[in-house]
């Protein structure tokens, strides 16, 4: 599986309250959540994001609340992958469980700039910056997580193993 898209870049400690503010948590509809994704950090995000775009951020991405609405909103916005230096652990679990591709790669997260075009090969965990030509190797998922991802999330994985 591959993804290719334009980079939207943010800094460190992007928390789930700015990814999807709690005032919108009276719904769990992905499209409604996507309509307010990132708005407290980046007002332009919802109007400029294109299907396939790649979100790149610094340390501790997705810290704070356990709301699965956060990766749901990012996925429903059309983001094909999130690359970060590190992820907060609940966000990491949630992304795998709902099938939002994420890659931990400090080098890529630091280097890649807003607006760059990048291509990601999920099987290899490799990231290629098409704008600069540079390639990066992200952390590959442990086999157990790969099984969840290839089952398209935890629920289908459980159904398959029943």
């Amino acid at each position, binding site marked *: 599986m591959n993804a290719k898209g334009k980079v939207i870049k943010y800094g460190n400690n992007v928390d789930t309250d700015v990814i999807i503010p709690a005032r919108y948590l009276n719904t769990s509809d992905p499209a409604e959540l996507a309509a307010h994704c990132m708005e407290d950090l980046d007002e332009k995000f919802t109007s400029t994001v294109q299907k396939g775009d790649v979100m790149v951020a610094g340390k501790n991405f997705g810290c704070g609340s356990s709301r699965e609405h956060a990766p749901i909103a990012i996925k429903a916005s059309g983001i094909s992958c999130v690359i970060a230096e590190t992820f907060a652990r609940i966000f990491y679990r949630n992304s795998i469980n709902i099938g939002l591709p994420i890659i931990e790669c400090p080098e890529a997260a630091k280097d890649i700039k807003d607006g760059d075009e990048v291509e990601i090969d999920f099987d290899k965990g490799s990231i290629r910056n098409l704008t600069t030509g540079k390639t990066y190797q992200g952390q590959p998922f442990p086999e157990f997580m790969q099984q969840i991802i290839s089952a398209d999330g935890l629920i289908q994985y459980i*159904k398959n193993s029943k």
Partner: protein
Amino acid sequence: MGMTMTQKILAAHAGLDLVKPGQLIKAKLDLVLGNDITSPVAIKEFDKVGLDSVFDVNKIAIVPDHFTPNKDIKSAEQVKVCREFSKKMGIVNFFEVGQMGVEHALLPEKGLVVPGDVVIGADSHTCTYGALGAFSTGIGSTDMAAGMATGEAWFKVPEAIKFVLKGKPQKWVSGKDVILHIIGMIGVDGALYKSMEFTGDGANVLSMDDRFTMANMAIEAGAKNGIFEVDEKTEEYVKEHSIRSYKIYKADADAEYSEVYEIDLAAVKPTVAFPHLPENARTIDNVGDIKIDQVIIGSCTNGRIEDMRIAAEVLKGRKVHDEVRCIIIPATQKIWKQAMNEGLFDIFIDAGAAVSTPTCGPCLGGHMGILAKGERAVSTTNRNFVGRMGHTESEVYLASPAVAAASAVAGKIAGPEQLG
């Protein structure tokens, strides 16, 4: 190589003699928790599994506490989903308004968590129960759904940071100040993916309410869990609240830690976390002159009876500043009744504070105290992110109940000793 408290609990629940950091395991769950925001998503996922029953009707707790009493129609619909699912599945521990309290204050009080348990909750502050010597961690809705279906969850065994607490805190210094001090020291990702294990003579000095506050905010350092060693106070608390049997796990003498910190509790000062991260900690003598508009005393972090008593001690015979709204929210019905019977509400109301029914409400900008553009609040809650309590240009300063109450009187950030 020996194991930490967390590693031992996880090993026992995975049916293994030994686990190592980084190892992926499947552990049996003693309790699965959800609230009115996370449960509806979990219920939708649970339905996809195609089961007509949950793994154990006694081991699931659903607590509608975030937007309750229902703040609007959509919130009411979400609680209805929780209520109907609980009824259909026969879930014993569904707590309706009137029984309901802020989940992490409620579950220990109801005796639903005991030492040695493995608990997952679709709420990041589920780490609170580590105060009881349990392994307890926040997860998302899909993990909650899987937990309700299978009674199991997968975990990566964490490394641990050991905090050796020494000495005794000074007057007006509480668990909140200690944990804000620690987060200020290690940062909001200082314990990422790790356990925070609290031990030492100083830990034994702290009350259970202080320990709940500290374990509660382990997530604000990025930790997987926070955990306290079980002592006489823990056992006394558990025996008073629960009829369940429990098991005490102690770290091996040769357990490995990625870091060890020694904290002298006597040296900790009242501490305030400035916007917009809990790591922006400053001691009360370094806060400067910051005028405020609102004070919140409550939440899963600081809505317990001791917090109410401290707030009352500060507010007694004093008045909330003319330009401040002070909102006090006891976290559960039991705490509410106790505070009322101890006469604390007379003190609060005479001081000009408002007392609310239990709810998470303002902590996450839900309802019951939202901030306008440019407003500032001192709050005993746990997060001060951009927009957390309202407008993106409002500000939240995290503090203890003592500092929050004193600030309400002063009209600016202040400690009780500055009130004169």
